[in-house]
């Protein structure tokens, strides 16, 4: 499929969204059929598009631009780009998206507003796909905002629930705090580069000339212009991708239906931030040792570690997954900052699969257990839902980096690049610690949910976990979670080389080499050790969630309280913002009473004195003359107001007379 | 035949002095059109009365001349010798000008319609205007003014009411009519009727009526043409049983005949336009039949449509005013807009993939729009009638 037809991919779900909006609310079955079908179709088209990028052999990038509209001489161009980055992202989004759509068909079978849901979901997918194919920062920004809007609609889908409405609002506001940075950066880029096209035959803003000139220009403090702009854009990406400190919306977004969480977390919204940075990588990398890459690395590693820590203390099934998403996004950022877009995109793709798998598995569990999400009240599901247990375990192992599953390879690539980062070692250490924690918290969740006794009273025996619409997506995603990693091993980095446009060669030597082997050993150790540690703490014979508190809570109650409450960041924001404002107000009041008040009174006294003097002078001297002037003014005003008689024609007459006057004045000027 | 006609004209023009030649040329183009259509008017009145008679199971006029063919002559004589009455309080000038203006405009519009083509490429058309269609509608819309003048100047409330109704109806139906004609303009890319006919040459499969949008636009156009020329079932403005004869109530004698003439001529103009735009004009249905002259094909198609109109007049009852306006604004206008979009799509699709795909993609939206709009109208029909402008 050539690049001219790339627009079809987002157009299909968009069309579906439009059609669904017009459908009556009772046509739920037709709606799910249309939405899922269109999504599968765009997956097929994405596959075709991907094939064309393979055809070219070498690194291929084709663009298709057209003029959107012209005003006078300025023309606004937009267009699409098809290169490996787009192709990979398209494939991931459309495949994972369509599997999630399929799952939703079963998951929301009893929802009354199913049509609306699918309309919003299709709209969301369309916006995301549009974001991916954009060859123009403005178009990307438009789709970016549409993604935000769609996420607001979807998170608040159950808007009658106050928490859901609040969560939707929070997500919207927090991501828009980030978008402000993105917007300013974009405007700035447009004004200095003169174009927002990414690739435009050498004149685009991601191509050699512009990047070079932006890197060469510096502003105050010696920072390169490109660095400043990308830092602003990074602020937007942090909002969308849930990086500390703008991550607060993401755990709350769990209020939406589970497929929505899966879509937001796996392939769509949060990946947008990483994708944006990967797309703008030439600009980030415009100068050697660019400050923005350093910032990306630090933000990513801190987020990875911090979120993994918080996940340890959570008890909500989906919330744990949400925090793990934040943590994994941190890994992607870390990979992007140290190893470039290929590393980050590899983790993004593998993460998309196993995270979607985990969310959909969690959805199955939640549905089977009568919408119970607290892991302390779940348990022993291993026997009752063996299939779900199996696929969930695959997803969990992949996330924890168990050897030879997909997460293992992609995380390994990130360790590899972080280890050789010159600037500092701390990100690497943080990443390693985070990986250990990942294994621990995922094992903890597994043990809570699937092992031990069955503690849930509202378990629905009628729920069938093997229904086609539920089982097929889960099985497909599980396959992906197992196999995808082999595309990008150190020995045969097919994926990375595809993205960078080189031909992959099989090099066992790279795998055997000391550094890689050591890292493989390290990460194996981390994941297995972490799981063993968690098993030791949480195994059913040791610990019974029904009667006991969490062991961590028993041993380190104070630390656990911090973890449980997500380091009190929400509260902290509330306290700082609100209290800051209050304090400022009170300070102003004190200032007012003690200083400005007396000053004003003094001034008043002075003025009164002067006024008294002036009154004397006034009454005696001025009034006589002034009265006369007043009378004249009053008479003049009366004359004028008589002219203003409220009739239209009088006014037109004045206009005409002025016209005549102007004409005659012009003539006279012309003559002299 | 076309060559013959053109050469006769040239011979005659050559007889005049050079200064007068353009004027003579124009006059010579006008005369046949005037004669032919006036003849058509006379014949159609007989034909209509006879056909209506047969539909109502009785004889039509059959006394004057062979098979009643001289009836229009008798009618005309009667009209001319009737007393010309002008009401006392009427505005005499305007009262006089109204039928004149109406008849003039009804005749003027024929000047852009092509009736045939000589083998050397010259067309049998009084004037080949580049903006022929706009001319047609601009001049045609003057009829509204004339109707208003007639109604207002008569100082009669029935006349005024009839004129108001007629104008409301004409304005309402002008919008869907223009839009349905625009589809043809969109496809042929020209406002000149000669060019539009030219794009339909070479067989009936090139005719615009044989496309999904064209068929629907043709039907819309015919309906709107009926309404524009105040014919049954849209004859509310001059319904005898309601407001006697509408704006013509105070007219008698020759002026009345002029109104009558103008009405029929307006109908002929619309029919000619329909033939030209949708049915390939003077082109034969298959190229092998090209030895038959163009005007014959033209008038053949013309007669078919006129017969169709007469048939409709004989069968359908009169509409109510609110139904009439609802049909125009709630069904025909949106339908015409949909057709415009479909025609654009057809243009694109049949250019790239051929007409088969065009049919495949373009007929479903037309049918769907028809079903949806039609159902929307049917929902209203059962409701109580709303009386507006009564108090």
């Amino acid at each position: 499929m050539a690049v001219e037809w790339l627009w079809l991919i987002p157009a299909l779900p968009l069309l579906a969204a439009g059609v669904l909006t017009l459908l009556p609310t009772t046509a739920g079955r037709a709606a799910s059929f249309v939405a899922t079908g269109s999504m599968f179709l765009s997956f097929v088209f994405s596959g075709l598009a991907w094939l064309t990028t393979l055809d070219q052999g070498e690194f291929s990038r084709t663009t298709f631009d057209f003029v959107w509209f012209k005003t006078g001489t300025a023309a606004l161009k937009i267009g699409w780009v098809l290169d490996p980055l787009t192709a990979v992202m398209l494939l991931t989004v459309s495949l994972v998206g369509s599997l999630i759509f399929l799952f939703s068909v079963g998951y929301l079978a009893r929802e009354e507003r199913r049509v609306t849901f699918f309309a919003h979901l299709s709209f969301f997918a369309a916006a995301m796909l549009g974001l991916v194919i954009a060859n123009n920062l403005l178009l990307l920004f438009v789709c970016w905002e549409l993604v935000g809007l769609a996420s607001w609609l979807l998170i608040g889908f159950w808007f009658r629930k106050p928490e859901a409405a609040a969560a939707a609002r929070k997500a919207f506001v927090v991501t828009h705090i980030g978008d402000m940075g993105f917007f300013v950066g974009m405007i700035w880029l447009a004004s200095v580069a003169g174009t927002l096209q990414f690739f435009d035959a050498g004149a685009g803003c991601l191509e050699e000339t512009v990047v070079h000139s932006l890197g060469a220009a510096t502003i105050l403090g010696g920072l390169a212009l490109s660095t400043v702009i990308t830092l602003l854009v990074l602020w937007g990406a942090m909002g969308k991708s849930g990086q500390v400190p703008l991550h607060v919306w993401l755990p709350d977004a769990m209020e939406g239906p589970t497929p929505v969480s899966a879509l937001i977390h796996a392939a769509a919204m949060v990946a947008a931030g990483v994708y944006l940075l990967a797309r703008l990588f030439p600009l980030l990398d415009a100068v050697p040792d660019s400050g923005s890459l350093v910032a990306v690395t630090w933000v990513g590693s801190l987020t990875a570690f911090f979120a993994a820590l918080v996940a340890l203390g959570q008890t909500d099934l989906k919330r744990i997954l949400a925090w793990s998403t934040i943590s994994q996004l941190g890994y992607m950022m870390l990979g992007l900052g140290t190893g470039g877009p290929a590393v980050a995109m590899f983790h993004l793709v593998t993460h998309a699969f196993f995270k979607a798998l985990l969310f959909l598995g969690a959805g199955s569990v939640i549905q089977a257990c009568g919408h119970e999400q607290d892991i302390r009240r779940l348990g022993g599901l291993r026997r009752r839902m063996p299939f779900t247990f199996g696929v969930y375990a695959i997803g969990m192992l992949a996330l924890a980096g168990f050897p030879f599953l997909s997460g293992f390879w992609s995380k390994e690539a990130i360790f590899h690049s972080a280890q050789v980062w010159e600037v500092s070692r701390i990100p690497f250490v943080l990443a390693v610690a985070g990986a250990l924690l990942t294994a621990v918290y995922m094992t903890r969740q597994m043990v809570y949910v699937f092992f031990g006794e069955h503690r849930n009273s509202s378990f629905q025996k009628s729920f069938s976990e093997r229904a086609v619409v539920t089982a097929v997506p889960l099985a497909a995603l599980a396959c992906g979670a197992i196999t995808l990693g082999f595309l990008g091993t150190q020995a045969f980095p097919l994926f990375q080389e595809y993205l960078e446009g080189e031909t992959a060669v099989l090099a066992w030597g790279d795998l055997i080499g000391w550094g890689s082997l050591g890292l493989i050993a390290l990460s194996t150790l981390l994941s297995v050790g972490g799981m063993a540690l968690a098993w030791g703490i949480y195994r059913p014979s040791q610990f019974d969630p029904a009667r006991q508190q969490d062991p961590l809570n028993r041993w380190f109650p104070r630390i656990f309280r911090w973890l449980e409450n997500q380091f009190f960041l929400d509260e902290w924001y509330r306290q700082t913002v609100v209290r800051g404002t209050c304090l400022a107000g009170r300070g102003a009041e004190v200032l007012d009473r003690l200083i400005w008040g007396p000053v004003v009174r003094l001034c008043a006294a002075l003025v009164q004195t002067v006024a008294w003097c002036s009154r004397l002078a006034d009454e005696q001297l001025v009034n006589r003359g002034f009265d006369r002037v007043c009378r004249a003014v009053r008479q003049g005003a009366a004359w004028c107001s008589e002219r203003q008689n409220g009739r239209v024609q009088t006014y037109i007459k004045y206009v005409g007379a002025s016209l005549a006057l102007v004409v005659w004045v012009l003539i006279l000027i012309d003559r002299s | 035949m076309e060559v013959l006609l053109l050469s006769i004209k040239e011979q005659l023009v050559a007889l005049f002095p050079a200064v007068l030649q353009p004027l003579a040329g124009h006059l010579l183009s006008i005369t046949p059109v005037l004669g032919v259509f006036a003849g058509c008017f006379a014949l159609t009145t007989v034909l209509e009365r006879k056909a209506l008679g047969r539909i109502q199971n009785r004889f039509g006029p059959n006394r004057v001349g062979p098979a009643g063919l001289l009836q229009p002559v008798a009618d005309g004589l009667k009209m001319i010798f009737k007393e010309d009455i002008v009401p006392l309080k009427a505005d005499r000038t305007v009262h006089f000008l109204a039928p004149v203006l109406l008849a003039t405009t009804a005749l003027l519009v024929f000047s852009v319609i092509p009736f045939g083509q000589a083998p050397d490429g010259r067309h049998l058309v009084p004037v080949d205007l580049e903006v022929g269609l706009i001319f047609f509608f601009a001049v045609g819309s003057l009829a509204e003014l004339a109707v208003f003048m007639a109604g207002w100047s008569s100082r009669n409330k029935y006349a005024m009411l009839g004129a108001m109704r007629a104008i409301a109806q004409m304005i309402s139906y002008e919008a869907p009519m223009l839009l349905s004609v625009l589809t043809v303009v969109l496809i042929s890319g020209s406002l000149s009727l000669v060019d539009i006919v030219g794009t339909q040459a070479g067989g009936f499969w090139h005719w615009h009526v044989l496309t999904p949008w064209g068929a629907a636009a043709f039907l819309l156009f015919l309906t709107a043409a009926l309404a524009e020329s105040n014919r049954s079932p849209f004859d509310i403005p001059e319904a005898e049983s309601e407001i006697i004869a509408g704006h013509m109530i105070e007219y008698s004698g020759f002026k009345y005949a002029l109104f009558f003439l103008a009405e029929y001529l307006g109908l002929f103009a619309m029919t000619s336009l329909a033939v030209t735009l949708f049915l390939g004009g003077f082109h034969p249905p298959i190229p092998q039949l090209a030895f038959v002259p163009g005007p014959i094909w033209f008038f053949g198609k013309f007669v078919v449509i006129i017969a169709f109109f007469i048939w409709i007049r004989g069968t359908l009852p009169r509409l109510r005013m609110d139904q009439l306006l609802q049909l125009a604004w709630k069904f025909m206008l949106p339908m015409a807009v949909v057709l415009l979009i479909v025609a654009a799509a057809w243009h694109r699709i049949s250019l790239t993939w051929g007409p088969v795909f065009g049919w495949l993609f373009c007929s479903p939206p037309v049918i769907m729009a028809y079903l949806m709009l039609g159902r929307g109208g049917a929902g209203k029909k059962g409701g109580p009638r709303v009386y507006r402008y009564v108090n």
Partner: protein
Amino acid sequence: MDSLSDYLLLSALLFSLGLCVTLVRRHAILVLIGIELMLNAANLNFIAFWRFGPNPEALDGLLFVLFSLAVAAAEAAVGLALILAVYRRYSVTDVENIDELKG
């Protein structure tokens, strides 16, 4: 052939007549008609300048008239609606008797 100044003269005459109608007639609708007359005088000027200008292949004058026609149609619709509304409220169409257009 006629020259540019003929057209300008005619348009000036029309404009002044329109202005006079606007200023002099009592009936609100006639005031509006006067405005229409002035607009059309301006349109005539546009077309004349376009045709007699140095570059009649560029159609800017015509396009301007096209837009001005649309604006004039909108203006007439709104103006007539206003006259109708005023008539409903005060039962007059005489601009002499409508004198509340003041502060």
